[in-house]
């Protein structure tokens, strides 16, 4: 036993550098200020959009085709185009991303150099600017010799490439959150590693995978850059009706309208932005709902 005695103060007082010291208060104030600025920008942005777009927030916006008259024009093909492109993107990116994540997380040897190289690159790819994926898809299309780039499947391909790393990363995190004991329990009953993944690990990770995938898709929904590069900026007077169909999407339509000189089109662009915001909020709410409702607490 040590014989050192600690000098114990009689009364509990203020500790130096405690919660209400000037330094701590200044730090708290700085944190609150940062938060305030961030939220302020968001609120102002949404408010300005809503105020500007409200006059054209009507049925014609959703039901009409674009046209020369800003009071009559609508975003119907763009809304349908966005849905087509996002659905196709999801169909391509989610199975591929989930499969890649399962391989990396459950089967690949983490000490293998090649696997570590792949992992590092997945992390890096998640930070690559969207336009680069557009360029990549563009060159792929050129190699295939396609002259018409404005097809749903081509746009979806670039967006699928864009969100693939995000889906891989979030799926891996969801798989990692499943306790190792569940895998061991399954294996100890004589299940094969593949059965363990399909019947235990993957189902337990589905809420996390769904949340991550929806958030990735909502990023793709708001993306314009790669699609602009792939000829998405077109004037359409028909509904997209297949994978090879021509299309435009909401962000591109907004870009198009806001670059027109007439003020009426700016109002239209703001109204279309409201539609895009509403779609994004719906998707993000769904992601939050899934997370809260189904996530397993171990």
């Amino acid at each position, binding site marked *: 036993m040590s014989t050192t005695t600690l000098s114990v103060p009689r009364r509990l007082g203020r500790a130096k550098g405690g919660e209400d010291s000037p330094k701590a208060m200044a730090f708290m104030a700085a944190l609150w200020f940062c938060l305030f600025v961030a939220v302020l920008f968001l609120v102002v942005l949404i408010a300005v959009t809503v105020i500007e777009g409200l006059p054209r927030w009507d049925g014609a916006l959703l039901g009409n085709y674009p046209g020369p008259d800003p009071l009559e024009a609508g975003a119907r093909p763009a809304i349908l185009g966005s849905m087509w492109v996002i659905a196709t993107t999801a169909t391509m990116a989610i199975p591929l991303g989930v499969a890649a994540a399962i391989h990396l997380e459950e089967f690949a040897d983490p000490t293998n150099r090649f696997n570590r190289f792949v992992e590092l690159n997945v992390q890096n790819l998640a930070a690559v600017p969207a336009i680069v994926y557009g360029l990549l898809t563009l060159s792929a299309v050129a190699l295939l010799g396609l002259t018409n780039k404005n097809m749903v499947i081509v746009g979806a391909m670039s967006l699928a490439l864009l969100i693939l790393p995000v889906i891989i990363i979030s799926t891996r995190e969801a798989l990692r959150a499943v306790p190792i*004991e569940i895998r*061991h*329990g*399954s294996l*100890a*009953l*004589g*299940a094969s590693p593949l059965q363990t993944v399909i*019947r235990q690990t993957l189902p337990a990770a589905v809420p996390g995978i769904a949340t991550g995938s929806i958030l990735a898709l909502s990023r793709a929904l708001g993306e314009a850059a790669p699609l602009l590069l792939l000829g998405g900026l077109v004037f359409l007077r028909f509904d997209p009706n297949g994978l090879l169909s021509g299309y435009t999407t909401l962000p591109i339509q907004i870009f198009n309208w806001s670059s027109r000189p007439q003020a009426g089109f700016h109002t239209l662009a703001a109204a279309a932005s409201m539609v895009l915001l509403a779609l994004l909020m719906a998707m993000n709410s769904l992601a939050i709902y899934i997370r809260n409702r189904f996530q397993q607490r171990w």
Partner: protein
Amino acid sequence: MTRTYTSRARELVDTPSPVISCTDVNIYYGKFRAVSDVTLEFGDREITALIGPSGCGKSTVLRSLNRMNDLIPGARVEGVIDYHGQNIYDRGVDAIEVRRRIGMVFQKPNPFPKSIFDNIAYGPRVSGMQVDNMEELVEKSLRDAALWDEVKDKLKQSAFGLSGGQQQRLCIARTIAVQPEVILMDEPCSALDPIATMKIEDLMQQLREQYAIIIVTHNMQQAARVADRTAFFTAMASEETGDRTGQLVEYDTTEVIFERPADQRTEDYISGRFG
């Protein structure tokens, strides 16, 4: 010193009729030798306890018996672990087959995030067992694990709603459902309260009629209460490398180990002088 041992249905014979025999088993994690030269036989329809201080390799030995050690990168077993005349580490032997015959219950109850019914039915389903009536098999497994009466009205509910002790008995029921011959238990009661522990110990006595049970425990009283035979392990510093390697010190009937151990280290450990 008087100790009461559990009343045994059978008189123990001197040498068990072995279900698993280890001969010169060395277990390595990479270059590190975790366990050296273990030779012992686990009796059929007996409870064998593996005891010893932390780091003595008893869990490592247990996990090598159904090849759960395979899951740890770099783990390697040398020597022979014989099960019905076959070395379970032979090239032609599939770890999955081994684990279907030699089941395992873990330290922390680990029910699957599924219903109670599906927890039990999982093993038979994945192993492709021919089951005529799954309801019957589930009921029998739960009865054998002394859990049926507590859960018969909520088979469709999540297993996570059960108490820790019930969850552990569910894990035992789940193991029984695939009809193994041997059940390995890795400190099955260390996460449970005394009453739940007692229930598991009673259950082990019943299961002993049909299965060989091998249990790792930190609790010496538990070993004394439940085990027919006890193996005492300890960690010894190797002369060559200085690494601490687990060794089997003494293996005998529980009565001998606790009443008149042959080795001084066993004596010291069971009387609480170290460990």
